[in-house]
């Protein structure tokens, strides 16, 4: 085991796959000489050369579209969007071509698109978003949202091996803030298997990404109240671990769904609806959602704090549920 930041764990997993499998290459804006806007691929071009760590023009459709072509030709491309927000420029390609090619034409598209996502540092409307729900809605795509360094590495390796287009949402706020023990060897973590971040008996929180830590802080406060909170970290929102969510709902009978993406049509709505359909008889209270309000991500620190769900918001929501 080695202590790594979330960012180092992603670099480690990517480097490991590139060393192991010469079909894997990286393409994106400033990923080569500069090492990527967040330095995930720092030193990669020196090790793997300019044709496996490819600095692209500023053109997201060309980046992701080229990944599709190269993947169909047998490569295992890993694209970096400089910020997850810019994937909107490649949305058409991902949804129109990559997602449907296997279903329509029998041609798998094994690509990974890495997406530095999430807010919390005044990135404003175009450097802070969490667009996972809009992709989770598209049949044919997979969406991964790791919360821990260990998961980030193992899930990235799984993503590169997966025969489908995978969107890998890396939360920027976790990049250097979260550090933990990560196995040094190569390992994979399966998609669709949630992780119990915290075991508890009274209320469940279903969440992913940076909100896992917000939920963790809130759980400590609830513990002081004598309320035991269980936190389920989905790890992947498509596929998502329905069984783990339903099992936790049945165990605690009270569920809070928490995400940083905006509320309406957010992936939490799907989870809440599934719990209502499948575990209605087991519930002792309404399924509650806490999410960002339906609003673009604001720039001002004061406004952004009002936008992103905070520990106090989650504490209030959990207390309300506990008292129900």
């Amino acid at each position, binding site marked *: 085991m080695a202590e790594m930041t979330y960012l180092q764990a992603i670099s480690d997993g990517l480097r490991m796959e590139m060393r192991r499998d010469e079909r894997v*290459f990286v393409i994106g804006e400033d990923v080569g000489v500069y090492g990527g806007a967040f330095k995930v691929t720092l030193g990669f071009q020196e090790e793997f050369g300019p*044709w*496996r760590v*490819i600095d*692209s*023009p500023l*053109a997201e*459709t*060309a980046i*992701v*579209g*080229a*990944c*599709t*072509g*190269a*993947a*169909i*030709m*047998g*490569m295992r*491309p890993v694209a970096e969007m400089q910020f997850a927000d810019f994937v909107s420029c490649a949305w*058409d*390609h991902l949804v*129109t*071509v990559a997602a*449907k*090619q*296997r*279903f*329509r*034409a*029998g*041609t*798998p*598209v*094994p690509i990974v698109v890495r997406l530095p996502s999430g807010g919390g540092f005044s990135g404003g409307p175009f450097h802070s978003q969490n667009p996972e729900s809009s992709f989770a809605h598209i*049949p*044919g795509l*997979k969406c991964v949202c790791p919360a821990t360094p260990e998961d980030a590495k193992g899930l990235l390796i799984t993503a590169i*091996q997966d*025969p*489908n287009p995978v969107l890998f949402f890396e939360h920027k706020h976790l990049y250097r803030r979260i550090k933990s023990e990560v196995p040094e060897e190569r390992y994979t973590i399966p998609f669709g298997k949630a992780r119990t971040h915290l075991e508890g008996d009274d209320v469940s929180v279903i969440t992913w990404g940076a909100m896992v830590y917000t939920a963790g802080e809130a759980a400590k406060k609830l513990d002081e109240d004598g309320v035991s909170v269980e936190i389920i970290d989905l790890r992947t929102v498509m596929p998502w671990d329905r069984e783990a969510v339903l099992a936790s709902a049945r165990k605690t009978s009270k569920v809070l769904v928490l995400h940083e993406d905006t509320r309406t049509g957010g992936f939490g709505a799907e989870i809440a609806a599934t719990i209502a359909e499948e575990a209605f008889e087991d519930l002792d209270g309404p399924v509650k959602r806490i999410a960002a309000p339906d609003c673009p991500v604001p720039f001002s620190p004061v406004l952004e704090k009002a936008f992103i769900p905070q520990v106090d918001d989650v504490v209030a929501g959990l207390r309300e549920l506990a008292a129900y």
Partner: protein
Amino acid sequence: MAVREAEPVGSLSEVKEAGLDREDLLGIYRHLLVTRGIEERGHILYKQGKIPGSFYTGRGNEGAAVGVATAMGPNDVGTPLHRDMGVHVTRGVDAWRIFAQYMGREDGPTRGRDGNVHMADSRLGMIAMVSHLPAMLPVAVGCALAFRIRQEKRVAVGWFGEGASARGDAHEAMNFAGVRQLPVVFICDNNQWAYSTPTHLGYAVEQLADRAAAYGFEGVVVDGTDVLAVYREARSAIEKAREGGGPTLLECQTLRMEGHAVHDDAFYVPKELFEEWAKRDPVERFRTWLRENAELSGEEEDEIGGRVKKLLNDALARADESPQPDPSTLLEGVYATPEDLDTPHHK
């Protein structure tokens, strides 16, 4: 770098220089007939109510499609579009599977998951198109990128129409290919009408191939009704790309001889334009050329024509026997499995 306007192909010796013997020429003729025959039969099937949805043809573009496909090497790949049936035919897709595709049957290349020319046989190096044009150009560039990374002497061919040239995908793809000098050839099927929109409402340069200069590679304009000129220019561009010379934009000028799709009578296209281009019908034009330059005899014509007719009749009958897709298989293939990667491409 100015755009070059290609000369028509003249004599048989010129054709031999370009690498075609008489047998190849008869093969091209057969592919033109099969291409047109498939689309004519498709039209009838549509009118018989056997084709769900709409129906698209490439009448007038057969020479451009067959010419380019004939110039491709066996390991080259491409992303042909809805006017390029001739590419599928030349690469060797069986006619009966195309009819099955039209009818949404289980034996069509997409097994009823998609319709009309939205299909491809990946074993033949083709990648199935989508409706959004020119979305396949970045994909073709990606194929070329893979060849460049692995240092393989293979070429990708990406098709687009003059209508689709207005979209950003075309720009992003050509710019990236130019920057990296990738082994890709861009074929513009310029049939003058994007649905009802004429070229002067679609782009402001004189020739679309003029744009190539902006991306740092050569642009060539060729008469798309002259299958041999298309072949010669495509071959030269493909071999240049194969040898590391980078991309070429080859603009094949034709006229879309029917509506955008079967429901469209193309009332907005001047009659005189149809009359003018009807005289340059690619199939008739090549037949005449063969008679004048390659001693195509009446007997040979009848023999080839008869074989094509039988092939199409048999194909239709076989396609009609293909079962409807089983609704219980609806969800098959939404996500790929690791076994799906066990294809010639993905290995």
